[in-house]
């Protein structure tokens, strides 16, 4: 009886990815106790991660999963469709959600009054609902709805920062994010006009029949602009540094590793699965727009990062550069390039959430993220700073870390496309990362703290454990690449229509 029930439940796992956090958000609001709300959120987040693992293994064993919501068969009803690509993205998103949530109570106590914690967890879960929904849905309009759910909750999360600048950062993001979302809606409307369907798989078939006409090209342009704003592609990134700097430390660790990653997934899905690479690259020359933007991001982001006095802000600018690498992988239009982009999605989520959690730990113990505050931390918080060094090395792309793996594929992709100057630029921009990571390492390990500095203890275990799980993962997946690279390259082949 119970087994039968569980078996039936497990068929509904795709829907539970969305429904469980949505319901749990409401429960968090009702219980009004910080500890209990956190416990509920933890159960749901780790449960989502576990079911994402199950879904991934099922996709690997049996191929694409299609789930008809409410029993309405696609293309009429809303479909949840999980293939290699979004199973991987779902895994990383739910995984990061769960790990960051585990680290959150201590850090939040410092930044947000305790009575507000249940509300915070409710919004956090809503954001998770939106991100998971965007990832697994097979319906284009649904992507818009979930995008807005995750965006609205992330504006609310950012505005919880301790300084008043969090408010202006949040409204700046709100204005830009809404313009992005509306452009995406417009693009989806134009596709609907041409194809008469909202189901992604159905759209792809019919768009291939229609061929390139002006409506389709305008639709792709609208979708491209809309998603690029959410993804923070170089000239459209201006909301990102402020939002990441002034948001609470936990929120930054969470958003930096999930929101832009899901936006990248949506861009890949639209360009390769819906419009088709042929149309995007031959008819609209998407690479001619995205590649210069990506390269500009790699240099501008890293260059500005070097001159920041706030380490959290430095990491935010570094995110702009890292998004550049991901977009570059997409614009190379080759299996290696796209593999590099997708692997970097996975890898960057691990390193950045780790680094931003280190910022949370430093803020908790020292009370500031300014570079002066890091003086002598190498000796006073050795474990935390060691994790910073590991993740930092990965950001640079040192061998045996994940950063090396993704850059390897990007450089290979650039050579395959005959673009050796791009390969050189990838390596040169990595040198800029050496400079900004070294600045922090130098201050932390080779400078003495001021004599009147108060005694500082190592970060609490509840923060240290998640930090080291993430730092360990950057090394683990740098050595055992079969899961991340294997999945990403299989997904890239699938997207480019090359048989396995």
């Amino acid at each position, binding site marked *: 009886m119970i087994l039968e029930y569980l078996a039936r439940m497990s068929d509904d796992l795709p829907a539970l990815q969305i429904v469980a956090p949505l319901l749990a958000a409401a429960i968090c609001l009702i219980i009004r106790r910080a500890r209990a709300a956190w416990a509920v959120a933890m159960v749901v987040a780790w449960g989502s991660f576990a079911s994402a693992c199950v879904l991934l293994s099922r996709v690997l064993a049996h191929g694409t999963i299609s789930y008809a919501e409410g029993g309405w068969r696609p293309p009429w009803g809303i479909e949840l469709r999980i293939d290699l690509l979004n199973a991987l993205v779902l895994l990383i998103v739910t995984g990061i959600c769960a790990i960051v949530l585990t680290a959150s109570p201590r850090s939040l106590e410092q930044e947000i009054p305790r009575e507000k914690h249940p509300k915070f967890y409710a919004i956090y879960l809503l954001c998770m609902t939106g991100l998971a929904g965007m990832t697994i849905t097979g319906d284009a*309009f649904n992507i*818009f*709805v979930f995008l*807005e759910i995750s965006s*609205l909750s992330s*504006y*609310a999360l950012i*505005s919880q920062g301790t300084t*008043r*600048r969090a*408010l*202006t950062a*949040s*409204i700046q993001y*709100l*204005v830009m994010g*809404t*313009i992005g*979302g*509306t452009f995406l*809606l*417009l693009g989806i*409307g134009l596709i*609907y*006009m041409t194809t008469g369907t*909202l189901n992604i798989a159905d759209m792809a078939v019919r768009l291939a029949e229609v061929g390139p006409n002006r409506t389709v090209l305008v639709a792709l342009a609208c979708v491209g602009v809309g998603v690029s704003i959410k993804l923070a592609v170089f000239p459209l990134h201006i909301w990102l540094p402020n939002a990441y700097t002034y948001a609470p430390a936990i929120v930054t660790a969470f958003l930096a590793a999930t929101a832009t990653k899901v936006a990248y997934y949506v861009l890949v899905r639209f360009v390769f699965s819906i419009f088709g690479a042929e149309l995007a690259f031959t008819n609209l020359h998407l690479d001619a727009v995205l590649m210069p933007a990506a390269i500009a991001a790699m240099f501008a982001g890293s260059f500005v990062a070097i001159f920041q006095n706030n380490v959290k802000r430095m990491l935010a600018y570094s995110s702009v550069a890292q998004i550049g690498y991901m977009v570059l992988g997409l614009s190379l239009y080759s299996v290696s390039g796209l593999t590099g982009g997708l692997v970097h999605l996975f890898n960057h989520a691990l390193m950045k959430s780790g680094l931003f959690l280190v910022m949370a730990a430093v803020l908790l113990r020292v009370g500031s993220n300014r570079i002066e505050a890091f003086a002598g931390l190498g000796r006073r918080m050795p474990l935390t700073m060691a994790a910073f060094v590991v993740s930092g090395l990965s950001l640079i792309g040192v061998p045996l870390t994940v950063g090396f793996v993704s850059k390897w594929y990007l450089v290979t992709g650039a050579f395959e496309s005959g673009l050796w100057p791009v390969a050189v630029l990838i390596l040169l921009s990595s040198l800029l990362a050496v400079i900004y990571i070294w600045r922090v390492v130098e201050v932390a390990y080779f400078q003495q703290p001021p004599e009147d500095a108060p005694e500082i203890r190592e970060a609490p275990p509840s923060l240290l454990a998640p930090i080291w799980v993430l730092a360990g993962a950057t090394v683990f997946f740098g050595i055992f690449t079969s899961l991340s690279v294997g999945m990403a390259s299989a997904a890239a082949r699938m997207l480019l229509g090359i048989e396995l």
Partner: protein
Amino acid sequence: MFEGGLYPYWIVIFLMMTGLYVVISRDNLVKKIIGLSIFQVSVIMFYVAMGKVQGGTAPIEAEGFTVYSNPLPHVLMLTAIVVGVATSALALALVVRINEAYGTIEEDEIRELEREEEE
């Protein structure tokens, strides 16, 4: 689509550009949010115009009617309207908080205050 040509779409484009211009050009945050709403509404009108069929009625089966408008884009816009309302509400709530924290909702004055803070 209307037989009278593409004029609904010109209205949509006009509204869209108006909204975008207001968002870019105004420093007052409330005006910015109004611009944002106009921008969102233009896309809602675009969907509504898309589903309308000349002479079509609501898609309810009845004798004597053979032409129906497409209800799907209209239904989708119910969701988009909710999203729009939620966005405006959240934005206005943030503006209230900004007014409490800075004492102004003019963006240039806020920027001035933030610059002083940094020095």
